[in-house]
């Protein structure tokens, strides 16, 4: 596609339920990132994938959060047993190759998660 695509755009879930958020990166982009943005705050890094290398999970806030990526395509961020503090926008981004001089990181429109 032309840009990074995320779904759902909005999700309301009950506390304790699991949610899955999906990201389709720009075609040909080998690097994929997940960020979280709470209301009125900056972006927090969660996880990134580079090709078939082991993902960098250093930003995941707890073991309730996990993410997968199939090859160099779609990624899914899963939040288990959701809590109210998980309410935020979850932003996905992609780039041609992580760490390469001159690459640009493009963001999707985000998935707005509200836990009630």
């Amino acid at each position, binding site marked *: 596609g032309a840009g*990074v695509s995320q779904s759902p755009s909005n999700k309301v879930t009950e506390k304790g339920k699991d949610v899955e958020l999906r990201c389709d990166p720009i075609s040909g982009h080998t*690097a994929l*990132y997940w*960020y979280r943005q709470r209301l009125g*705050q*900056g*972006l927090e*890094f969660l996880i*990134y994938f*580079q090709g078939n290398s082991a993902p*960098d999970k250093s*930003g995941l806030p707890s073991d309730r959060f996990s993410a997968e990526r199939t090859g160099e395509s779609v990624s899914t961020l899963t939040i288990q047993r959701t809590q109210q503090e998980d309410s935020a926008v979850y*932003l996905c981004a992609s780039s041609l190759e*992580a*760490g390469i*001089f*001159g690459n*640009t*990181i*493009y*963001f*999707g*429109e*985000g998935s707005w998660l509200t836990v009630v």
Partner: protein
Amino acid sequence: EDQVTQSPEALRLQEGESSSLNCSYTVSGLRGLFWYRQDPGKGPEFLFTLYSAGEEKEKERLKATLTKKESFLHITAPKPEDSATYLCAVQVDAGNMLTFGGGTRLMVKP
């Protein structure tokens, strides 16, 4: 620990009133400094990447500059449509992710 601080947190300008936004950073080995624009309810939109001190880039009414400790986003004769949150982020040699500042919320009144 890498740190990025943006100031001011919020800035109100009259249309045509030029100003600058600041992004100061403390990192070990800067690979690149990125500026993004974010409109309410939208994802960040890429503006510029700067790689070395002294570098400048321009786009319409925006000009970004970089020193060894900070970056400035200069807005010349802003228009109401420039109202948005401007985000600064750094990418360092030791990692690949972007570390973001808290953003500056710019409001331009007609």
